[in-house]
């Protein structure tokens, strides 16, 4: 198997100096002025060292020159094949260009960075080749990262030795300027394909590869049971919801909010908040959402189309929260989170609510 690596050398620069991110040359200058030191290369090397310990030192890694990859490859004791020469200083354009070149030549592209880097990789590579993030950024809301550099190296090695499926994972990002001003606002940018090594519960082999699909089928049956004749079902974004839609017989895009009819036909794809509001005002509908990317966010991250107006029109008693038991367990006791932008509505949704986990099965779980 051929591995590629692209490092965003400035990823994570703002983190330790409290800048809540590292996007933009100005912030990076401020970070350096505050004494920040780049850690991305060192962390990338740690991931590669793990890969080397599992696959051997004979490995060659296609990468970009210098701090964008080759240094880390060499530091990990592996041979670097340079396929891209960046300018100085490096910019997001370099990340994109390097990722695009490498994607054509490798079976798995490792990238070291945070959510911003993940977005650059998404723009440059898309679903063309599986990727995996080595977490070095400040914000990592995306579900494309190993939980640690070592875990990323481990997942890459597992993919090489066979046995990992590839799944779609969410690329999320916060608006850093908004965060610095004390507002939190994240959105879903799209999906990258990553090796399916459950990263929170790292029990790849014991992790219930059968129980998850089985419970998704159960959830789909439960949704069908609740739907009255002619009632549309609004499905939020995410891999779980896509699998639920598939179990209902519909092939929906992973991104965006989709509307199904009771027979599992796709009635409307990737709808806007305005369109959704029209639909749910026409007919009594149900809305099903699932927490995103292991963060616990239920509403207000990546599914803003399901707006307060939509939720009020549908009625909060017709908002169905859906998650496999494994997904709830992976939250490690953290509550589900809502941030619809309407504080009254958020308050109304807060408390213990049922979460559909299978056919005739629910968990009662806290929402904050």
């Amino acid at each position, binding site marked *: 198997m051929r591995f590629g690596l692209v490092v965003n050398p400035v990823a994570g620069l703002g983190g330790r100096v409290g800048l809540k991110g590292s996007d933009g040359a100005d912030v990076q200058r401020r970070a350096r002025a505050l004494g920040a030191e780049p850690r991305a290369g060192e962390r990338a090397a740690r991931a590669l060292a793990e890969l080397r310990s599992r696959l051997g030192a004979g490995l060659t890694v296609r990468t970009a020159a210098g701090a964008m990859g080759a240094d880390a490859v060499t530091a990990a004791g592996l041979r670097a094949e340079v396929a891209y020469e960046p300018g100085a200083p490096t910019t997001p354009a370099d990340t994109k260009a390097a990722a695009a070149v490498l994607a054509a030549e490798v079976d798995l592209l490792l990238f070291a960075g945070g959510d911003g880097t993940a977005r650059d990789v998404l723009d440059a590579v898309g679903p063309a080749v599986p990727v995996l993030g080595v977490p070095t950024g400040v914000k990592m809301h995306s579900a494309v990262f190993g939980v640690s550099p070592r875990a990323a190296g481990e997942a890459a090695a597992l993919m090489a030795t066979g046995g990992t499926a590839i799944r779609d994972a969410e690329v999320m990002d916060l608006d850093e300027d908004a965060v610095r001003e004390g507002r939190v606002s994240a959105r879903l940018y799209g999906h990258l394909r990553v090796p399916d090594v459950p990263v929170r519960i790292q029990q790849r082999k014991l992790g219930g*590869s059968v129980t998850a699909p089985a419970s998704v089928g159960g959830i789909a049956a439960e949704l069908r049971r609740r739907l009255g004749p002619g009632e549309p079902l609004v499905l939020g974004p995410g891999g779980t919801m896509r699998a639920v839609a598939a179990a209902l017989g519909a092939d929906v895009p992973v991104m965006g909010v989709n509307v199904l009819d009771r027979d599992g036909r796709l009635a409307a794809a990737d709808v806007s908040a305005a369109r959704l509001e029209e639909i749910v005002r026409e007919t009594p509908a149900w809305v099903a959402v699932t927490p995103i990317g292991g963060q616990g966010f239920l509403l207000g991250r990546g599914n803003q189309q399901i707006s307060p107006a939509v939720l009020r029109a549908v009625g909060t008693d017709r908002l169905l929260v859906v998650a*496999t*038991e494994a997904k709830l367990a992976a939250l*490690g006791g953290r509550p589900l989170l809502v941030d619809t932008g309407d504080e009254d509505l958020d308050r109304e949704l807060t408390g213990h609510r049922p979460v559909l986990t299978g056919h005739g*099965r629910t968990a009662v779980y*806290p929402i904050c």
Partner: protein
Amino acid sequence: MNTDRATVTPADAKIGPKPRLRRFHQARWDEPLLFELSSPGERGVLVPEPGVPLDDSLPEGLRRTTPPALPELSQLHVLRHYLRLSQENLGVDLNIDVGQGTCTMKYSPKVNDRFVRDPKLAELHPLQDERTVQGVLEIIYRLERMLREISGMDRVSLQPGAGSAAIYANVAMIRAYFAARGELEQRDEVITTIFSHPSNAACAKTAGFKVITLYPDADGYPDIEALKAAVGPRTAALLITNPEDTGIFNPRIEEFVRIVHDAGGLCAYDQANANGILGITRARDAGFDLCHFNLHKTFSTPHACGGPAAGACGVTEALAPFLPKPTVEFDGTRYHLDDDRPESVGKIRPFYGVVPNLVRAYAWIMSLGAEGLREAAEVAVLNNNYLMKKVLEIRGASAPYAEGRRRIEQVRYSWATLAEETGVHTEDIGYRAADFGTHYWTSHHPFVVPEPMTLEPTESYSRADLDEYAAILAEVAREAYEEPETVRTAPHRSTVHRIRQDTLEDPETWAVTWRAYRRKILGQ
């Protein structure tokens, strides 16, 4: 910690020092299946021809058209086959079996096997006239009385098996109770917790209930606020364990019971494992309506690999009419089986329970007496907290929730720190432990505690046993930090290298019979 570091003793001068940890090495026979060993025409037993022409006496539907596809082997080959398999095994009589957490692996006294194998018991038949089995009926009757005392319940039935069979019996009684009151339509929900045995949810589902699961709060207790949100007019019952698999005793258990009772529901206490509270607290004292014991856990009978284990269901007077049947009654002179119980949920297992294990449990209780039972629980709890202290000294190990608090009879540990720092996972550590002649169990799914390990030292293990077990874990943890490859590629001295997990998880590939193996694996 180093395997080669020696403990110097006077004998060392002559025979050399011993390694600090024993160098276990398991047999590896690469033993084929009996079907693969089969040789046409080979015979172990020559069954005599029947004296009568069978064709006339057997109904048409029972006659085979083709001979059964049985393996053909000599007695020696069969004996050798099973002896080899037995050498490729670990078990409570062979290793320090504290790693099989929640299973309560304790010594099953061999003297009790002598009672069971005595022809006076072994040659009884369940269809014998009850006048000829008064002795065994008396044992069942007396054992029921003892378990009433131990649980505080009004009636006990030994008819169901253990585990899921006993839980199912309790759920069936709950269903029958509400059906009799005309409330079954309304009460269609059963509440349980994610740390309770999954059989609770599964049995409730099998009996037609919807299942609501509670997750732990920050302290590891089932979330009482979630319970308050979950109960209502649809609640039939709460099925709960205490302590749960974390080993943390829930001091608010009476409040849980009250909340459910106030909503009109029943409460069933999963006491499959009651080893930490025996003689200390009782299901009835906490207000429960039903409970069950697995006699192969707390009461020392063999586990028998998920097979013929015996259980006990205890209920209050209000639920007694619904007990499985027959019940064993005594009229002052004679014991008899009562099948005339119109409201009974019927038979859960054939006949009236797993008699050999009932006899073993009876003998165990009689040998200890009331004080001995309590002492068994106390020693089990002491052993557990001693082992916990030793395990928590190991780098990378932790016991999530209720930090600083003691546990009851078991602990669900986490290797999350070790995994994060070394890339070695709990499954790897378990495999490596097999190289030292032991093993452990992780957790039920889903893994609420990451990188879990569940240990339960019962009263049967000595301090030296616990020290040895902790030393093995410490050694494997040291290896994980210093030579992770050794752990990741383990086991090195065990029978099976690594099991392909998908062959256990995936219905398309798992094969538990020869026929399934041929179809799914060999493609025949």
